[in-house]
């Protein structure tokens, strides 16, 4: 349907796995209290949230989660083995600690003994095994299935130890378990009941109308200290941006995601409303498939890269909620960011120059777009085509229906709009979308040098060399790659001034990486 920005369908796996591995690598088994604390949280109050997404087809089955609405629910009602802390480090959650064999082939997770389900039963190893298995095997249609392929075997060792055997060593393995798919459910003779409402999270479900609302009530016997402050939480699906903003201004909801950036400057004027932004690694891309004409010519790609006015897009589309991109997916906030690279900017003459180098006098290409790709993609495309005119190119904007965008346009059309939730490290980012072998190499870009560097980087331990390697890879992306990356965006949400957030929030995804329900509170 039109208003559920179908990004959601794409979202989980695109930005899901391994997100949040910290810049400094990993800190195994660190204590829980290193987090910077804000003004002391206060219990009580009801939080009403207006959500863009949410669909009548939503269900509690963790294998089918498709949108923010369910992600947030999942984190509130259930919990995961590992959580990513606001500072980006991985922290044990249901797990009390975990350790790996030196070759990182075998991982042993020890469960905490005080964690209980809402029906009072203690969390046992069997629960974990069945919960993970639910996403594996031929029948599984879980979005996270591809990532669990690396698991050779799971077994429970006693009641509170779970052992994972992997195909190859993977030092980043624990990060997987932050994913909302991998919430732990109750085992019933070897399997979980996916629709069961019994979870280990801070809240229990009072009412659930898929695609309409869900009402949550705090568990008084929640085992995690210093979390779950709201007494009640109501998530409402409010598809229409204007309706969301109205609801916030009339005080019918306390928090909305994705306010309409067009009018956010007007929303700001409201004294009872505050705008909340998170930087993170989210960025918008316009992948050109380098296997398709005319994009197989690098000069055409460069011409287009110089024919887009990135400033204008940041200002007009993102309304300043973002920074210009430089045609590679590494955010300035990330490690190994290559600051030396000269910034691509709108330069008609250069564009014309490259165009003539490619032997073309003029260029006629179609850019396929939809606001499903990212909020404002259509406007951005229009801006692009306007700017391109200046460089003597005819860029036709074709607006596609929001539904089915990811199945019918992305990876299908030679030149379209897309986005990446981003990855915490260059290695993960590049392997996800730029490696020759990546499922989602949406530019079909296969640069030998680049892929060779990627392999080296993963095994390389010397920070200096790593910096060089990733620096060069960024440069290769920028000058040769097929992805036109005009801007890095911010997650923007708006909330009543009553809603309090910690000083440091997890920035990977919107709203404290969608763990806001148990982390935030009412003044």
């Amino acid at each position: 349907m039109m208003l559920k920005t179908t990004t959601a369908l794409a979202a989980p796996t695109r930005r899901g796995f391994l997100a949040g591995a910290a810049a400094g690598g990993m800190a195994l088994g660190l204590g829980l209290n290193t987090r910077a604390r804000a003004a002391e949280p206060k219990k009580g109050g009801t939080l009403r949230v207006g959500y863009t997404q949410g669909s009548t087809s939503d269900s509690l089955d963790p294998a089918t989660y498709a949108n923010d609405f369910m992600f947030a629910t999942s984190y509130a009602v259930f919990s995961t083995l590992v959580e990513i802390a606001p500072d980006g480090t991985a922290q044990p959650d249901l797990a009390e600690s975990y350790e790996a064999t030196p070759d990182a082939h075998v991982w042993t997770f020890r469960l905490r003994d005080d964690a209980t389900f809402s029906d009072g039963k203690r969390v046992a190893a069997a629960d974990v095994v069945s919960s993970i298995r639910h996403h594996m095997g031929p029948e599984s249609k879980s979005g996270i299935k591809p990532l669990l392929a690396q698991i050779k075997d799971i077994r429970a060792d006693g009641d509170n130890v779970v052992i994972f055997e992997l195909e190859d060593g993977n030092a980043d393995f624990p990060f997987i378990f932050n994913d909302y798919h991998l919430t732990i459910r109750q085992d019933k003779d070897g399997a979980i009941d996916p629709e069961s409402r019994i979870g280990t999270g801070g809240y229990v479900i009072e009412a659930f109308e898929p695609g309409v609302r869900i009402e949550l009530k705090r568990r008084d016997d929640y085992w995690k200290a210093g979390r779950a402050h709201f007494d009640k939480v109501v998530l409402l699906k409010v598809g229409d941006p204007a309706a969301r903003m109205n609801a916030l201004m009339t005080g019918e909801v306390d928090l909305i995601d994705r306010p309409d950036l067009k009018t956010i400057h007007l929303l700001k004027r409201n004294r009872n409303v505050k705008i909340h932004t998170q930087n993170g690694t989210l960025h918008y891309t316009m992948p050109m498939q380098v296997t398709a004409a005319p994009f197989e010519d690098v000069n055409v790609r460069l011409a287009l890269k110089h024919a887009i006015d990135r400033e204008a897009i940041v200002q007009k589309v993102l309304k300043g909620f973002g920074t210009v991109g430089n045609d590679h997916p590494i955010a300035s906030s990330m490690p190994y960011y290559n600051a030396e690279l000269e910034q691509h900017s709108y330069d008609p003459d250069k564009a014309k120059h490259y165009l003539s180098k490619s032997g073309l006098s003029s260029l006629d290409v179609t850019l396929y777009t939809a606001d499903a790709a990212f909020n404002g993609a259509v406007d951005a495309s229009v801006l692009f085509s306007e700017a391109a005119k200046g460089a003597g190119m005819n860029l036709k904007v074709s607006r596609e229906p929001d539904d089915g965008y990811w199945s019918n346009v992305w990876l299908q059309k030679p030149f379209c709009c897309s986005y990446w939730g981003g990855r915490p490290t260059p290695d993960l980012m590049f392997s996800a979308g730029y490696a020759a072998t990546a499922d989602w190499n949406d530019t079909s870009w296969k640069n030998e040098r680049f892929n060779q560097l990627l392999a080296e980087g993963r095994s390389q331990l010397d920070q200096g060399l790593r910096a060089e390697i990733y620096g060069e890879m960024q440069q290769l992306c920028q000058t040769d790659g097929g992805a036109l990356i005009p801007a890095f965006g911010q997650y923007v949400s708006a909330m009543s001034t009553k809603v309090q957030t910690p000083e440091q929030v997890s920035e990977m995804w919107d709203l404290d990486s969608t763990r806001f329900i148990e982390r935030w509170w009412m003044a």
Partner: protein
Amino acid sequence: MKTLKSAPTTALLGMLILAAVLLTGVFAPLLAPYGETEIVGVEYEPWSAAFPLGTDNLGRDMLSRMIYGARNTVGLALLTTGIAFTAGAALGMLAALKGGWTDQALSRVIDVLMAVPPLILALMLLAIVGPSIPNMVGVIAVIYIAPVYRLSRAAAMNVVSQDFIQAAQLRGEGTLWLLRREVLPNISSTLIAEFGLRFCFVFLFIAALSFLGIGIQPPTADWGSMVKENATLITFGDITPLIPAAAIALLTIAINFIVDWMLHRASGLKS
């Protein structure tokens, strides 16, 4: 000319507005101060000498977009309605004239078509064929064939029962001739009146489709999507979206004034 003189002021006013809009559409490039999609300023600039109606969410000149919008909105709506009427009227008259099986078959198909909610039909069809402008025109036309068919069938029924049709049939005239020369001229006034109304519905329908995201493609300026693009502003009492909306309303009212008058004349001719 004589008939024009007898027209009530409302109808004259209506024609005036309609003519104005049509002319604006035709001469858009000459009238518009800026290009249709040209970005000429900061977004949401207030009204000024440079931008008489301010600028929109991308900093395009509202006035220019309004002027081009006249061309696209009215043009497309006209085209769509035109197609729907040609097909619908032809089939309707045929059913009325032939009666029997032809009538049954056609009418049943139309029933089915009408029983499916139009918006859903549009969503499905557009999802199938893809939301390009030609496709949209086609789909909406198909949807509007149904009501037009019913109307023209009903109107034609009154005509075919009259003796001059029998006279022509007894002469051995062909179907096409009967439809074109004997029936059509007698239901044209009814059809024209209906055309006016349908025309309005059509571009409201286009507006609704734009609202649901599958209407006219950007950056093309049409009044419907212009309302949609700037609709959220209304929340804050900014009147920018009111301008295209007002334009739509004005045109609709104008057309209906003309239609009312035509209906009046049509009924006058009968009695």
